[in-house]
């Protein structure tokens, strides 16, 4: 009798185990197949960060000719960059699908051996010299040791006829779609747009103060423009950033005439500057920093266009950390001079600020409308405030000593203050009589050449250059990523001025910072404590209440049974 029972048990055991192993095997198999072939995913992010954006789709759809893409992805990349390899493959698939056959791509493993050693060496050399692909140095664990390995490749090259553009190394997928689309545009564009940086009156340029420009601004070429002669026609937009000396009449005339040709201009001008005057420098001691008006001699020029940068400094309790010098050292500290402009203080309809979540404006002056523009009498001209300080901000005017260790007293002149304006339309020349020095009522060959009214043009006047100044950004950008938005702001200003907003949404995609500003006063601390301690307390109270109800019920049942 025992034998059949044992056989039955054995069969049951075998059936159970075989079923369990078969099901587990099938599950593993499904996973392996899915990991190789499935691309099904849902992007829940607000900006659809992980889906090809309309700007990229339009760019590849309108490519003039075929582009070949070579993705250099080493086999066996270590984590976490092996995940980037998969992301790149998926992304290139999407580009190819959206291009309608204009983009074809292939994956190449640069570490794969060739026919022989020489073939391998030649191929590698070709990847490096022709396609500019560089190996990525990574820490890898080899033979029980952590080693620095340089035989990993992750880069992309784009081939368009004879032209080749490449992303030599991909260390992060953040902003990769923008880089690819931007390179595709660059590759197929007949003429790239050029930014001219005024460089006569100690302004900031990419070689002085705006060193981040080559890394950050990929869609424009740049050049320096001395204003002692007319601005060349190949300049598409003029940037005047942080002048510290008075402009000559001649320089102002050249800016005016550039505008009158319908070319756009951006002026980031400080109403006040904070520095240590030469006569007050004391060796070996804390240098006093004095706030004083910044004489750029631009008042009359801007006044003709209906704008004024005031000689003030806007201070705001809604501020962000900035680089503050204390006893010769830079510290990261919140101070009212680092104005935090949040999304709500932007015009989202204006391309300059659309898709931006906020910027940090160090040492800002207010900008006002004057004359006909203020009275809305300048026909055909529209103005849009770009950004404002908070209602609690206040104005500091005149000479003062800037000392970050001293708390600043609020003045009676309260905000919000507009920090910049975007002007669009037909502007009248500030020099209707011709070049400076032309006698009134007389006609000279020069005055006849000068343009009196612009066709539709764009002008941006902003009361701070500090938001782009490398000196302000470099020490803090790692600790306060919200400063990265300032660089997006620069790009978007250029885009708006040259009327090319195709990349604005794409550039901001996944790159924009979302600063969280929890005030230390008001209702915020109450909500914090309600969440932090109130919720656990509520759970305890609920538990006690339920226990009491249960105990009462139990008692009543016991009494009934008695």
């Amino acid at each position, binding site marked *: 009798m025992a034998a059949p029972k044992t056989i039955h*048990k054995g069969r049951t055991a075998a059936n159970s185990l075989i079923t369990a192993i078969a099901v587990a095997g099938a599950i593993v198999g499904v*996973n392996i197949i899915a990991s190789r072939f499935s691309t099904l995913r849902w992007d829940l992010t607000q900006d659809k960060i992980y889906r090809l954006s309309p700007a990229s789709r339009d760019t590849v759809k309108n490519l003039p000719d075929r582009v070949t893409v070579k993705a250099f992805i080493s086999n066996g990349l270590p984590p976490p960059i092996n995940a980037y390899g998969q992301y790149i493959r998926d992304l290139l698939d999407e580009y190819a699908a959206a291009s309608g056959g204009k983009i074809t791509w292939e994956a190449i493993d640069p570490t794969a051996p060739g026919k022989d050693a020489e073939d391998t060496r030649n191929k590698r050399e070709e990847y490096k010299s022709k396609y500019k692909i560089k190996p990525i140095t990574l820490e890898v*664990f080899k033979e029980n040791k952590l080693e620095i390995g340089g035989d990993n490749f992750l880069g992309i090259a784009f081939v368009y006829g004879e032209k080749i553009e490449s992303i030599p190394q991909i260390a992060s997928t953040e902003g990769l779609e923008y880089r690819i689309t931007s390179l595709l545009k660059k590759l197929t564009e007949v003429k790239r747009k050029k930014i001219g940086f005024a460089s006569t009156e100690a302004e900031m340029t990419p070689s002085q103060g705006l060193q981040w420009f080559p890394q950050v601004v990929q869609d424009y070429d740049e050049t320096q423009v001395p204003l002692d002669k007319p601005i060349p026609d190949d300049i598409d937009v003029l940037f005047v950033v942080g002048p510290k000396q008075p402009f000559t009449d001649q320089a102002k005339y050249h800016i005016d005439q550039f505008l009158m040709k319908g070319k756009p201009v951006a002026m980031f001008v400080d109403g006040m500057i904070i520095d240590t005057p030469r006569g007050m420098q004391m060796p070996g001691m804390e240098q006093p920093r004095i706030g004083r008006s910044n004489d750029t001699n631009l008042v009359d020029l801007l006044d003709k266009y209906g704008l004024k940068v005031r000689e003030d400094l806007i201070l705001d309790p809604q501020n962000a950390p900035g680089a503050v010098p204390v006893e010769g050292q830079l510290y990261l500290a919140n101070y009212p001079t680092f104005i935090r402009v949040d999304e709500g203080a932007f015009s989202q309809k204006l391309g300059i600020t659309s898709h931006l979540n906020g910027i940090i404006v160090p040492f800002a002056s207010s900008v006002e409308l004057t004359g006909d523009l203020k009275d809305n009498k300048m026909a055909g001209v529209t103005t849009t405030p770009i950004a404002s300080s908070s209602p609690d901000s206040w104005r500091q005017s005149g000479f003062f000593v800037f000392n970050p260790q001293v708390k600043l007293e609020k003045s009676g002149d309260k905000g919000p203050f507009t920090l910049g304006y975007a002007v669009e339309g037909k502007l009248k020349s500030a020099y209707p009589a011709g070049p400076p020095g032309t006698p009134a009522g007389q006609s000279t060959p020069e005055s006849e050449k000068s343009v009196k009214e612009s066709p539709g043009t764009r002008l941006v006047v902003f009361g701070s250059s500090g938001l782009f100044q490398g000196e302000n950004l470099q020490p803090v950008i790692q600790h306060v990523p919200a400063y990265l938005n300032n660089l997006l702001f620069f790009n978007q200003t250029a885009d708006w001025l040259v009327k090319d907003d195709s990349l604005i949404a794409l550039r901001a995609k996944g790159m924009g910072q979302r600063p969280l500003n929890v005030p230390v006063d008001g209702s915020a601390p109450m909500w914090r404590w309600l969440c932090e301690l109130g919720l656990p307390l509520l759970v305890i109270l609920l538990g006690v209440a339920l226990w009491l109800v249960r105990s009462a019920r139990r008692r009543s049942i016991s009494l009934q049974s008695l």
Partner: protein
Amino acid sequence: MRNSLAIARREFGAYFNSPIAYIFIVVFLLISGYMFFTEITTGTPQADMRPLFGLSPLIFCIFGPLVTMGLFSEEKATGTLEMLLALPVTDWQVVVGKFTAAVGLIATTLAITLPYAFFVAGYGHLDWGPVIGGYLGLLLMASGYLAVGLMTSVWTKNQVIAAVVGFLFCFALFLFGKLLQLVPPWLAPTVQALSFDYHFQSIARGVIDVRDLLYYASLIGVCLIVAQTSLESRRWR
């Protein structure tokens, strides 16, 4: 299905009839609340839920096996499991019912942290996509830990042993994602594919990828099948 739900309801009620659920929820809220609010009120925080999503995997790794340790071990020790299995329910229904109850407890705990998200949304520009993804990822990850804990609970009568063995399994899955730098390159992709962290990070970005869903579903499925098979083994031992 109906039987599984009936068991789930009974087990879920049992959690809240004993101090287990309250202790678990209160301790979780105190730790996560303190860490979360400290992080979002110091330095230069961003309007997202990363402080919660960064910490919770470790908390669930520890608490998951503690929540499930008694599901079978206790019933085995007290003999009530035999009574339950004598009812007209299959082993699979019992396993699924108990697992569902534990998942319900975790889902309740996570739901109580939703005010954190509303707090962040009140003072910053919160992208709800990664928040939804993060919560879904946490629920799936926690469910994975619970499935592992439930599996080890079937193996022994001793609750402490069930919790310790469950924790070791869970911690290994947790560590896989953290120690990738130390793994030989040829093994790294496999270890990464097995790690909870890798799949959780992927979902928490706000992208629901079928591959990540399949991973968690598979892991949970395998653990529950092993639990059922272990339970069934009483018939052939």
